[in-house]
């Protein structure tokens, strides 16, 4: 069943994909680190729950925007690292410019209306 009411600090799935791709641009990260990074960069405003992070990651994997490989975490545990692919890079750029255009348009409306 799709959950219609969005919990606090959650975000729409599309935005989550954009954020994941963006934080992966600076280098491969594992799932927990992705969540942490988004949380920290948003000044604790955005919280990524595992219930939405892992489905999103699986979807991105299927799309071929990231690849996953097993590595060892800072705590010395086996963990999967996600790395942006060339396709993912293209997707990120496309989504960023889309996002820019949309926010500009929305702001324009908000300012003038």
């Amino acid at each position, binding site marked *: *069943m799709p959950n219609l009411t969005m919990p606090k600090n959650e975000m729409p799935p599309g935005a989550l994909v954009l954020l994941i791709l963006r934080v992966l641009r600076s280098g491969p990260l*594992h*799932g*927990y680190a992705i*969540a942490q990074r988004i949380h920290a960069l948003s000044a604790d405003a955005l919280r990524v729950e*595992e*219930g939405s*992070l*892992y*489905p*999103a*990651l*699986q*979807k991105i*994997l*299927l*799309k*071929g925007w990231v690849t996953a490989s097993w590595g060892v*975490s800072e*705590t010395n*545990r*086996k*963990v*999967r690292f996600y790395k942006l692919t060339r396709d993912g890079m293209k997707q990120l750029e496309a989504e960023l410019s889309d996002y820019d255009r949309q926010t500009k348009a929305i702001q324009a409306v908000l300012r003038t209306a």
Partner: protein
Amino acid sequence: MRELLRRIHYLLNRRRMDEELAEEMEFHREMAAKNEGKPLGDSLRLREDSREAWGWTWIDRLLQDLRFAFRGMRTSPGFTVSAVLVLAIGIGATVAAFASFNMTVLRPLPLTDPHRLLRFQRQGPGQFWSDVPYPAVSFYRDHTRTLSAVLALTTASLRYEDEENAPRTYFVTGNFFAQLGAAAAAGRLFTEADEAPVTAPMVVLGHGFWASRFGASPGVVGARVRLNGKTATVVGVAAREFSGLGSDTPAFWALITQHPHFVHGSEILSDFSGQKNSGVSMWGRLAEGATPLAAEAELASLAATLRQQRPDDVWEGERLPSSPGGYPQSVGSVSRGSGPPPGVEERLYPMFVLVGSLVLLILAVSCGNLGSLLLARGAARQREIGLRVAIGASTARLIRQLFTESVLALMGALSGLLVGFAVVKAMLVLTEAPPWFDPTPDWRVVTFATLMGFFSAMFFGLMPAVHIARQRTRMTFTRRFLIGAQVASSCVLLIVAGLLVRAFDRVASSDPGFEYEQTIVVDPSLVEHGYDASRGRAYLDDLESRLRGIAGVASVTRTSTPPLGGARITASLEIEGRRHDIYVHQVDAGYLGTMKIPLLRGRNLAPGDESGVVVSESLARKRWPHQDPLGQLFLIGDPKALTVVGIAANARSLALQDPDAMKVYRLAREGDLPGMSVVLRTSGAPKTLLAAVGAAAKGIDPTVTPQIHLLKDRFEQRIREVEQGAFAVGALGIIALIVASLGIVGLVSYAVAQRTKEIGIRMAIGAEPRHILKSLASQFQSTVAFGLLAGVAGAAGLAQLLRRELYGLSTFDPLSYIAAVSLFVFVTGLAALIPARRALRVDPLVALRCD
């Protein structure tokens, strides 16, 4: 695309992927717990959500539902078996119909590359011939580039040794066997080299003839046989699997180039005009890269070239339209006429629609039946469904689960496939079909059966599933619809069956409009013996005078189209924008008198009256509804218009089933003579004269052995065919009636079970049995009434299609309708009484305590 590959990769490595995901998420949880002290959630649920991204969860759910469905079936085997049986009948009927259609129409003959074979016929403005003169065929063969080979065939009945009955011989070109990929069962087959003029006369045996006459002995190769008194060497035997290009295979195959050897006076090889009915059927094999359109264009231009050499024999603007050649068709029968050639499809179409509708009706009855059963069962499962909803199953999930239980339909489709196969196989055996008809289901039939299973699942499974899942189990629209559909479909089947039975009764008892009981037909097939017009005239005159000399012969006449025979000449006539086929009878002046067809108005044809024509009453009524038909000019086939001199009563001599068949009778022309048969009427029992007639006919030309038969035998043969048709449809109707009755029993017993408490209360406060019955009946009254109405309307529609097959019966024949409806009401009412009686035995005390 790559995404799909990745998805499939995930599906194949599902277990490993799942483990990896679990491990990864475990790490996440540990970290989160350490850093944030978060409580652990339901990890299984979270993992399921992630897995959903792979897009394969439906498989898991499907397997789950299937497992559940099969468990359910095992626990109620009675229901499962009866459901599969009902479906097997319904789907089996449609599969059998489709498989026959597939086998005879869709599936090509077992030949080499049958799709590249084309049949060519002649077509000019205003006329067509199904045959092509052999010299023209040779011309096309020598000049074509779009066809890699040109094949020709013509047929004849040649006397074998000194036997009475002349078996069929097919004359073919030398390349015939090689082009079609035929194998020899013994010896060898013809080659193109055999067409050389120096070759000694030779024949190839058909497999059936070889088996029945020579005991399938290979020693027959090299033996000599006599056909029409001419010897020929048997060079080989065609394989059993070889179908040739027709729907049957002959006793002998011979070379067209040797036609004059066997058939005295044959000019088939040189006659360019085709006027002596000496054309051949022509096929071509498309060359590599050529299309049928290119071949047609090339042949049209070749015909134009040929016309410059033979302006009298090739028509202006002559074309040779092609049709697929690698399919069963009737060969050897020559049809010529004005206008475009009649399409086989056109004539078969109503038949297909009729059979198709009937089997679909059976399927509808089965599905309606099963749907009601499922619904009733669903009502019994109310508690289970309620429980599922209570623990959080969504409606969509429930519908999916219940619909999955219609996996029954797949089992039904499978058994339907078997039933269909068995039916077709039995039909092939019963009708003694050629051995190369292969009833094994091919991909088309399997696909069809699967689709039928799927559609019936939609019909009987989905609607009840939706209703059960929504927990509406009262007398809803769906239930009414399912019952109504059942009633309507069975009703249509019964009415149509009734109409056919009545039609049979009528055709058997009514007067066909011509004398058939004391008539003998003598068919010398002079064309096949190379007769031209003058020899034909001499033969016929001689034959007629000999026959007249026999004591007991009352009257003798000649016709190109003997009654109830295979030959018919049609012309098309446009009346008020619709094309009608008109039967043309080429006769002599005595025909109407001999056949006892009454002349209603005007005068009969007089000898030598080549510009007069007698029309049938049906034609007169249709063509000149407000005018006097006598004296009207009438253009039919001939270049010159004919004057209507008389009107004859309708006679169903060519189309026994069609009382409105439109006919014209005109005198035979000189060129028609070799194609004519002699018909004679006797004053006493005709059977006693058969021997005398045979002796008289044989004495004229020893090479000609006329076929002689009693018209009465043919008439009875036709009636048997009608009887079989009526019987088949009647059987379908009875099956539908039984299935529908079973359904009604189920429904009423369910209604009684559901209302036990209510009935108990009513009885306790003094209701009488008839009140109870009445209230039970009222539940179904309107639905059944609507179903009956819809059935009557449907039957009336279908009967329109049957119009021409109905042997002169009104499509609104009230007796058939009333009888069918009353039979249905009576039988189902009786069926309903069985469970209803249980309601009357309800003990109020027990009933009130029951749940």
